[in-house]
């Protein structure tokens, strides 16, 4: 039978191409486009080359935002990962209370970002908020809109409240997949509780913890809504993280060029760090297997 050559079949791919173009390629290309051009208005653009990239890379403002961002992600990872594991270890393994715990744990994850921000914005206020008011009664001079340390405390606490559940649920899933025989064997081997954790639970949770760290790193590195609602990036620039700075630059000052260059580098940093994380952790795994 002769094969019929008909390249019209390629048209069947068209819907996907259109969808992907609109959802990803075109918006991204606009950003790329802006990042290498300048304009003085009237929709007239000039070629700017890598100028904006140089400007962003040497900007002290971006540097300090980057530093704050790293510090924020570092702090919340250092709190949420151990805390999440600890919570997962304490959760009941089965039965009615296990379900109750799961639902309660999932609740913060279901609340919209800006609502979380609003909740904590109000909670922290000294005049009407539960936390702020209590601290005020305890004679602690609490004011997160003036004191940078207080602002950090409330933003970090909020993020811990919002996202530790995710780590806990992932760790819990990892723990649940450990066969009972491991615990029985450890008991027979007279392993201490710490050794059970160190040699059974932690290695078996490695996979889900890798995912938890990646997710929490990416999310926290891109955090915008919650600190924006609670502190607006202040006091001063104390809680201005990268995306808050970026929005200020792009929409506040309408510096499309630098903002576009900034976005691209922001994106690449997240991609790079995630890739490094993933490669290092999976390679560790392989190296140990040898």
């Amino acid at each position, binding site marked *: 039978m002769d094969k019929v050559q008909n390249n019209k079949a390629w048209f069947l791919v068209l819907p996907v191409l259109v969808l992907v173009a609109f959802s990803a390629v075109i918006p991204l290309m606009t950003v790329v486009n802006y990042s290498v051009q300048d304009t003085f208005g009237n929709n007239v653009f000039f070629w700017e080359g890598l100028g904006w990239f140089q400007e962003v890379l040497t900007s002290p403002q971006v540097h300090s935002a980057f530093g704050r961002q790293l510090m924020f992600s570092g702090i919340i990872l250092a709190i949420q990962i151990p805390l999440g594991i600890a919570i997962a270890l304490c959760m009941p393994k089965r039965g009615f209370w296990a379900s109750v715990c799961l639902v309660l744990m999932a609740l913060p994850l279901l609340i919209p970002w800006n609502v979380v921000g609003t909740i904590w914005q109000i909670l922290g206020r000294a005049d009407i908020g539960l936390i702020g008011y209590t601290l005020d009664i305890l004679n602690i001079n609490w004011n997160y809109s003036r004191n940078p340390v207080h602002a950090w405390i409330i933003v970090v606490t909020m993020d811990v409240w919002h996202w530790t559940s995710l780590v806990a649920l992932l760790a819990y899933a990892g723990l649940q997949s450990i066969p009972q025989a491991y615990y029985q064997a450890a008991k027979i081997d007279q392993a201490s509780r710490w050794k059970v954790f160190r040699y059974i639970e932690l290695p078996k949770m490695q996979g889900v913890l890798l995912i938890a760290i990646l997710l929490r790193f990416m999310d926290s590195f891109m955090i915008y809504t919650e600190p924006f609602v609670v502190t607006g990036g202040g006091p001063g620039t104390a809680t201005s993280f990268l995306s808050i700075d970026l929005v200020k630059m792009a929409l506040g000052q309408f510096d499309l060029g630098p903002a576009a260059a900034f976005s691209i580098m922001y994106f690449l940093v997240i991609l790079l760090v995630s890739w490094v994380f993933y490669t290092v952790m999976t390679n560790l795994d392989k190296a140990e297997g*040898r």
Partner: protein
Amino acid sequence: MAQITLDNLAHSYLPNPKGEEDFALKQLDHVWGDGEAYALLGASGCGKSTLLNIISGLLVPSRGRILFGDQDVTQQDTVARNIAQVFQFPVVYDTMTVGENLAFPLRNRRMDPGYIAARVQKIAAMIGMEDSLKRKARGLTADAKQKISLGRGMVREDVNAILFDEPLTVIDPHMKWELRTQLKALHNEFGHTMIYVTHDQTEALTFADKVVVMHDGRVVQLGTPEELFDTPEHTFVGYFIGSPGMNLIEAEVKGNVAHCAGHAIPLGGNYKALKGRVQIGIRPEFVTLASGDEGIPVTIKRIEDVGRHQILRAEFAGKPVNAILPEGMAVPADANRLKFMPERVNVYADDWRVTPLHSVATPAREAV
């Protein structure tokens, strides 16, 4: 090391068991000798894992007591009972090396490092892993991991008993044989009480001094492999052990004759009148071809040549009857009768063996 006594033991997984059918493990009264190798044999779900978990202390029985020696250990946990257990699927500590895995139970008990090193070497030699002591356990094959589990189970010398819960499930057939032989050698050397759970009769019969056959939550027979073969106490033992299993035929027994579907079959002893469902059981090894008007008429279905012998599959009164014939023996085309060795016929009433009133001495078993 200690003798294990199961005193009035029974277990149900239900909080308020009512009838006997609610018990996963029906009443048991046994004394298991110190330093012997036992195999718990039975089909899946017969209660053998329940019994093992009760002995190891992972499960507290609903009724009865367990004694190690004179000491009541019913409420004690596994550690207090000083028992080692090897599970069906390999349990290894992934992030440790093979050597660290083997040393783990000893280190946790704060043994002398010199002793630990020597002991690990010895066990490693036994499981054939001396070369990979420094390797991480992660990434080893399933049978290598299971060998580590076996090694960890045997690394302690002072245990009261070592329990094996179908430990060779994941092991290659040729390794199975080798490991079983090593286990046996180890048993001879150290004299630990060993309890080995399996559903594989070959494994049970080659490993154990005594085989405990379980069926439907009950120990139906505890005996040496020879006893299980010659005088199965329950029809289950008859057909579960042996390949093919025992032939069971519905019968009416009067004195020393059984009447099956109108044919008389001579028995090796006299029996009193029996009630309930009466069956006679004969192993295929003791069934021979007959001619003339000897034996019972059968329809021969087929003959399977399995190498060392032939299996003759026949039908008597619509029910299968098997016979084992010597290798190379020609079966005449008109063969249509089978004969049972009278002294090898057992009589069962409601599945339990009935002992004859005055039995004819059983002749020594020929090699089968």
